[in-house]
């Protein structure tokens, strides 16, 4: 799971067209480099487009925004097929974009 921070979003917004395109290029390159291990991936639209439904308080409660109002938000995910955690760590160490990545096994 890719996690954006406020700082990262601000840095990205402050970039010029050329620089931003270069940084997107690095991300595309990362996906290409690891294509054989990535089974599925998605980039999410920013957290201000999120809608959250809470079902734990009797009536469903629908609110605007992500489920945690925080400085860090999940911005996308990729499902990868690797032999072990070290292989996943090697991939993530080469990730060129957002500053936080959470690795979580898929329940089988």
């Amino acid at each position, binding site marked *: 799971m890719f996690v954006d921070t406020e700082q990262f979003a601000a840095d990205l917004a402050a970039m010029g067209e050329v620089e931003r395109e270069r940084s997107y290029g690095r991300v595309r390159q990362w996906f290409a480099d690891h294509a054989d291990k990535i089974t599925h991936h998605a980039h999410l639209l920013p957290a201000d487009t999120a809608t959250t439904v809470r079902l734990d308080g009797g009536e469903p409660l629908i609110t605007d925004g992500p489920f945690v109002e925080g400085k860090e938000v999940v911005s996308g995910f990729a499902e990868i097929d*690797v*032999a*072990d*955690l*070290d292989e*996943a*760590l*090697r991939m993530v160490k080469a990730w060129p974009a957002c500053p936080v990545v959470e*690795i979580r*096994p898929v329940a089988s």
Partner: protein
Amino acid sequence: MTRPSHAELARVVRDHAGRLAASLVHLVGDFAAAEDLVQDAVEAALTHWPVEGIPERPDGWLYTVARRRGLDVLRRESRHRDKLALVPWPAEPEPDDRLRLIFTCCHPALPRTAQVALTLRVVCGLTTAQIAKAFLIPETTVAQRITRAKRKISDAGIPYRIPSADELGARLAEVLTVVYLLFNEGYLSSGGQQAQSRDLVDDAEFLATLLHQLMPTEPEVAGLLALIRLHRARAAARFTPHGGIIQLQDQDRSRWDHEAIADAARLIARAATFKRLGPYQLQAAIVACHAEAKRWEDTDWTQIVVLYDMLLHLAPSPVTRLHRAIALRYITGPAAALSELDALDDALDGYHLLHATRAELLRDLGRADQARAADERALELTANPAEQSLLRQRLNWT
């Protein structure tokens, strides 16, 4: 058969438990299942050996118990059945493969507390109860840490292997941190002899020795081993018969183990030939400066300050700066050292040694009232009984 001493029992378990664990992981192909079998075998040994004596072939004994238990589990528990059914169970344990075991236990994806507990249990053969006792935490907490860690190893896919060359540096640093923590914990809590508890310093030295055997060309491993041995070589002179601390300048240096000190110094010199200096080699070199001085007055403070400067360059830390300031006192005097301390106030205000050191410097400068206040602050901050009594003594006598 004579009854084995507690230390002997601990040593034999330590020598064989990790080896057995490594060979069982290899056989069973499952870390958690293998670990359960080893624990059962160790528990059985701790029940039988004190009464029946240590068998001639402890490794064979432990292996037989683990094997029998493995077959029992196979019959009873379906969850291990697939794995254990495939095990060929050779008559003899496999050759030494403990390095993989250590790297798995100290994987950076595990929390530090779990790395420590797992290493002690799996590599050194401590029981959950012994770990709990050594760290003064409830047994259930230790058990929980172990269970969670084992679950994470299997669920998150933490591999059972020696890291590749490009990762080895960082991963080895992680392992050495665990060993260093164990050593520190054991070193600070030592003093009184508790017959039932395991001496963590023994386990730390055992691990460092093992790592040094298995990775003889890693100079930081040699550095950590030397550091541990240098401290141990002087352990006998550190405490009064009643467990009170004797400070370095007051220690009877004839009680130091000078042969062990010379051995450790050779270890440092050999490590230096690899030309990959690191924090453990530097710390060991600093301790060696103290250990090799015939008398307190002979201490080479200039050399010590140079080594601290190198250490600060590699691994900046306020605690290291504090120690450097202590050494500086013997070169440039207490006033200069005191002003160094002032710069550390923010970082180390909660650290008793900062205040205890300040008290000594203030006393040197004739500022007795301020010295008392600093000693009182230090006393508030330490929970170690031996340190507390030293500080109380100082407050009473000055």
